[in-house]
């Protein structure tokens, strides 16, 4: 097993020189160091499973490390966020179709059970209801709502991350909120 990057160490001296092979990935290393936790949280809020979220982010960074360096550091964060959300979507599709075909049971069984006590303590019932309602929305609506209400991104940035028009972001957010309100039985 090769540890390429750790959040605490950063890329410069990770794994005895592995980073030097990846000099062209300096911005990627910095991105990992600074945004790893945020990206895992983003994925966790979309897929609802911390272990799966870590896997998603690991996969995305592993793929990016194996490819050419990111050409535009200014756009790197948006690019990686988009890649993480794409991977989340793929995971949810696999889960959904797997469940439909009886092939897949669920992800994060053991980890979820282990974490449940901690989560129980942290998440009040009201928050749990909101998150449960959020989990029933389509992946696209969930992504828009998480990007808007957790990351606080403006519509233009959400549009750039998701590769859709700002108008679509607006309508998707409005419909997502309305659906959420219906499920929570309140006015949106």
């Amino acid at each position, binding site marked *: *097993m*090769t*540890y*390429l*990057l*750790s*959040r605490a160490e950063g890329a410069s001296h*990770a794994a005895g020189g*592995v980073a030097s092979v990846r000099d062209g990935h300096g911005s990627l290393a910095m991105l990992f160091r600074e945004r*790893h936790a945020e990206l*895992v*949280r983003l994925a*966790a*809020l979309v897929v*609802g499973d*911390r272990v*799966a*979220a*870590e*896997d998603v982010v*690991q996969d995305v960074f*592993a793929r990016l490390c*194996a490819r050419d360096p990111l050409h535009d550091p200014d756009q790197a964060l948006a690019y990686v966020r988009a890649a993480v959300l794409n991977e989340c979507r793929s995971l949810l*599709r*696999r*889960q959904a*179709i*797997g*469940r*439909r*075909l*009886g*092939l*897949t*049971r*669920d*992800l994060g*069984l053991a980890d*979820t059970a282990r974490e*449940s006590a*901690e*989560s129980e303590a*942290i998440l009040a019932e*009201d*928050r*749990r209801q*909101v998150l449960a309602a*959020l*989990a029933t929305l*389509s*992946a*696209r609506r969930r992504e828009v709502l*998480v990007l808007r*209400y957790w990351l606080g991104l403006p519509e233009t940035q959400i549009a750039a991350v998701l590769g859709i028009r700002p108008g679509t972001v607006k309508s998707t957010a409005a419909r997502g*909120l309305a*659906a959420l*309100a219906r499920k929570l039985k*309140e*006015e*949106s």
Partner: protein
Amino acid sequence: MTRTEERLTDALGTAARAIDADTLHPLHLSERRRRRRALAAPVAAAASVFLVVGLAAALAAPRLGRGGTASPAPPAAPDRYYVEEDTDQGPAVVRSTATGRVTAAVPVQSSADAPGWDVFASAANGVFFVAGWAGRSAEEKLFSFRVTAAGQISGFSVVPGGAALGGGRWSAVAMAASPDGSQIAVAFDPTGLTESCSGYLGRPCPRTLPSDYIVAVNTVTGKKSMWQGWHSGQDNQFNVDNLSWADDGHELVFFGEQCAPGGWLATEDCGHGRVAEARTLDPASGGGRLDSGRLLLRQSASYPYIAQAVMSPDGSMLTELVLTGKVINGFPENLSVEQVSVATAKLLRVLYQRRGYTSADMDIPDPLLLLPDGRGQNWLLDVSFCGGCQAGFNGWISQRKLVPLKPANGALAAETW
């Protein structure tokens, strides 16, 4: 900010803070940690024990590309319209077979928004059925409708006996209509049992899932018969893959897979591997256990992967989607749609075959669907990878060729005509 927005912002922030940055794992490169239901060690598993029962004895012969099979029957004209629902966009729509143009939307929630997947079937008399969620209802119901000559939907209504399907904890996964539409068979799996404990930030799921069950509904009287799936041990649940009617609706055939020792293609669910089989059920019996049915076929060692098997309306032959050949990336490299005589177990014809349909960079072929029209004459084939996240293909089979149907990339939640 509205009350909903405030609650959402608060819940998301709290849930995000619950993930402590210091507990995250560093990035590794040489070992992929993805927890996917990889089809592990299929070749080794394939060498283990397989049973060949009845019809399967003859199915064991090498098949792909061998000569001496009958020519395909003259193609019947395909239905003018088909219903499809892709895995991403929804809702389900009616499309022209010739042009792909959308002519109508089916008034059910899209699978992306609903608690489960919409499942469709059609009868020979042109009636379509859908198990899904309409309006704001949280209850899965069975609806019927017709598609007019202009591709519009008419007569959309709940079928007698079609309310409260699955009791909210089970979701329809397969469905078939008898030729005259007077009977519908629906297979259910415990989707709701896992949905309600989806692991979404906290709730553990049951470790052992129950097997699927099948309900036959008389669409005139609403009378139901139920057959319960069986477990042959821990985690050895039975999953129904498809259903078909034979003998003018007097016999029901189901095809599915059991997680069992000696099975081929181990999955995360089926750690031992899967054993696929088809059995018949007598609708007049009123129900019972699925394994009480007569065994028609079971996979064999040299014919290990039967993805789908559908009985013809007259009960004379099975049409199968099979994978054969060298295993590449965990899967046999060839795909074939073949028809086999029930009476003699002989291969009657190869409807379609595709060599090298997968490749090293492709994920698990999933789903692999073979769907007849209401008359059992024309066939829809849908092949995708990792649940529609990579390019696959779908279309209808005509003279050993696949005629693409939109969306043509296999990313379908449902398709029927």
